[in-house]
């Protein structure tokens, strides 16, 4: 089933965006192809159980959410020595060949309706390139969304034996009346024996509908580690995925979310083991307060050629309120028997014994609960290599608790 294209959109809109930015012909063609694809592709898959649909993406009113010609953002980028960190537009001047080679190679535009919309309409994003042997530490992208709609496309390419630790933070800047839509597509191409940590912290205001697909592709012996923090937005659909294409490659997908009020957070972590001796570790921790609802799908897919695979998944949800709801589906799809795979998921309240211990030490119950929630996020915080990111996430969690 495909979705109607909003009447406010046409091929002309797409041309206008591309021409405004003086883009090369091939990129305009790619955008137009993506626009054409809108007719044929469906919204991202959503889990359905008898009588229930876990996230209702059909309700997104693209006609009112998508205002492609007035996109505006303010993005600050901090590079590291020897690496290239540029806005997508500027990068086209310097690295057109690389962008042409890798744009859409990990997330093809016709993956789904929302990726096609993004490829046709994106106006911002970052290109990060780390040459062979270079270690790019503490690369930072701080983006502020100032318009009703914003489509961002980020591409990370690391050459052989290089490394990069990247923090991306997304917030709302100028106030805009009505509902907003933020789309964030990230592609990571990790070269042989390279290492990428891509951390993303989303704290958009609560009128914003947020879609993100972050996907990486590993070469031999390379590692892609994702850290995905979702605090803000009205509704988030987040898909963080790695395809382990190289022998001996690894990935970690670490997620943290904290929903309150009537936020809906649909967060997903997926890994495809396609080569030999690959390892994956998926860790997601989330807290729900008020009437917030979380949806989680974790997929560990072991292909027929993925000999000697190790794959682990843990998901833990803490419910602070009786009105909240947590839905989870951790999935194992195993086609190769030479595999050690496990997953676990838990849902529950703050541990009563731990509360008792804390209160018996004369800590008031509210403070005790807050400390336990902060402690709950520690396994995620420990994974973060960019200090600033860790501090930001801690602060956002504390702010939400108080």
């Amino acid at each position, binding site marked *: 089933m495909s979705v109607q294209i909003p009447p406010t959109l046409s091929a002309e809109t797409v041309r206008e965006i591309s021409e405004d930015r003086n883009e090369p012909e091939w990129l305009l063609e790619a955008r137009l192809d993506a626009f054409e694809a809108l007719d044929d592709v469906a919204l991202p898959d959503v889990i359905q159980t008898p009588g229930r649909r876990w996230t209702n993406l059909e309700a997104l009113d693209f006609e009112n959410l998508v205002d492609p010609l007035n996109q505006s953002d303010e993005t600050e980028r901090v590079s590291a020595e020897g690496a290239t960190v540029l806005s997508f537009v500027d990068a086209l001047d310097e690295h057109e060949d690389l962008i042409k080679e890798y744009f859409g190679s990990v997330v093809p535009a016709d993956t789904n309706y929302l990726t096609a919309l993004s490829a046709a309409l994106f106006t911002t994003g970052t290109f990060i390139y780390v040459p062979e042997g270079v270690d790019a530490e503490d690369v930072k992208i701080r983006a502020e969304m100032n318009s009703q709609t914003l489509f961002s496309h980020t591409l990370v390419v690391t050459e052989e034996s290089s490394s990069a630790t990247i923090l991306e933070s997304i917030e709302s800047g100028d106030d805009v009346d009505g509902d907003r839509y933020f789309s964030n597509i990230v592609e990571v191409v990790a070269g042989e024996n390279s290492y990428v940590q891509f951390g993303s912290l989303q704290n958009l205001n609560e009128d914003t509908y947020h879609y993100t697909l972050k996907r990486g592709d590993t070469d031999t012996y390379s590692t892609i580690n994702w850290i995905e923090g979702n605090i803000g937005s009205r509704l988030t659909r987040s898909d963080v995925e790695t395809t382990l294409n190289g022998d001996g490659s690894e990935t970690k997908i670490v997620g943290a979310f904290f929903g309150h009020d009537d936020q809906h957070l649909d967060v997903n972590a997926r890994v495809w083991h396609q080569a030999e001796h690959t390892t994956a570790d998926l860790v997601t921790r989330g807290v729900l307060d008020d009437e917030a609802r979380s949806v989680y799908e974790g997929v560990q897919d072991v292909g027929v050629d993925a000999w000697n695979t190790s794959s682990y998944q843990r998901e833990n949800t803490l419910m602070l309120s009786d009105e909240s709801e947590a839905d989870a589906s951790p999935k194992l799809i195993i086609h190769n028997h030479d*595999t050690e795979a496990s997953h676990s*998921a838990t849902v*529950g309240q703050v541990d009563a014994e731990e509360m008792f211990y804390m209160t018996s030490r004369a800590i008031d119950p509210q403070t005790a609960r807050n400390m336990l929630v902060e402690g709950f996020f520690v396994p995620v915080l420990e994974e973060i290599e960019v200090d600033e990111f860790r501090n930001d996430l801690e602060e956002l969690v504390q702010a939400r608790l108080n």
Partner: protein
Amino acid sequence: MSSEEHLKQTDTEARFEFKKEQKSAFQAEKGLNEETIRVISEDKDEPEWMLQRRLRALKHFQNMPMPTGWPEAPDLSEVDVDAIVPYIRPDVDVRGGVDDWRDLPDEIKDTFDKLGIPEAEKNALSGVGAQYESEIVYQNMQEQWQEKGVVFCDMDKAVQEHEEIVKEYFMTKCVPPSDNKFAALHGAIWSGGSFVYVPEDVTVNMPIQAYFRMNSEGMGQFEHTLIIAEKGSEVHYIEGCSAPKYSAFNLHSGGVEVFVKEDAHVQYSTVQNWSKNTYNLNTKRAIVEKNGRMEWISGSMGSKATMLYPASILKGRGASDNHITIAFAGKGQNIDTGAKVYHNAPETKSTIESKSISKDGGRTNYRGLVHIADGAYNSSTAVECDALMFDNESTSDTMPYMEINESRVDVAHEATVGKIGDEDIFYLQSRGLDDDDAKQMIVSGFIEPITEELPIEYAVELNRLVELEMEGSLG
């Protein structure tokens, strides 16, 4: 034959594989339409309301989609309901089942002798029902249970003799035909099965068993089982099933409804060994009242494709559920099974333990749903799935779904998948076992949590079936 001799004879394929010449008293045309259903209902001399229910179910069947689009679901494209014979009444004198095996025609008696049913009845059971094709041919229960008011009879007979109860419970509150396409099919064309009624405070201390046998090629079996366990009662129901293998597909689409009243306890055990041309698409569900307990134990060894997710609706405070399932998929098999539990009341508890083995290109999938409703506080659920894979042609999927609407709960899910341990095999080999025996022993250990829940005769039976699967000598 002593039970030991009997067990020695079980390790032959012939035990399940033998075919009997088809002799029927009545056989419906292939396919499904209103006329077929009227003919079946008339042949059974059913009351008008049952005919109307069948016809309503048929409408649902015609309007509902096939269960396609599920992630990684078995391929049902071969299942053409119009190609099967939905109803074959075996050629016996007494409808509703004789109570002496000797009164059965020789070929039917011989069938059940070979399957070891009369032997088991003598040793370990309170009662036995045996279905051949579409109807029950043998039905018996020890007198002491009859005296206590326990009813164990053929479902068709129950429609006649316990009409009021059946009318109230039959596919009304538990499994309505609108539930899914195959429940609708079942509602239209059901035949045979068991009716079990256990009065208040009666504990039936030995299991009762029903055995279902399909003999004919290209037939469909649609037995209905309705169990009502009144307040404080207890019963263990066992069903077994088998069929010889044919080249055309067979279809089994059973319906099971269990009502577990306050403080009652029902255990429902299934040893499924359909031939590997059978599509096994069942709907099984229990409604559990206050402090009641429902246990689903199932071993799925046979069938070409199985889609089966026994469900418990924990409706009353303190109700509990226990699922233990084992699936073994060999060459060409796709066993998609799991559990569904709805926690609709406070202090309800469920535990689900699933073990699966895939071998020689077989495919197993655990697909399960645990739903905890808002207000079902102090409920807990623990799900554990373990899968063992023998080779690289096989597939093992685990797909649990959890919907938690209540914070004061304890929810845990765990799953592991792995190959059979090289070290374990090495250890056993160093103790003088050969490779095959070592593997068999490891598998027996792997499924022990399930076999220990069954009476010894069935545990042995299940182990034998697994051994036969391991040798690849079945079907």
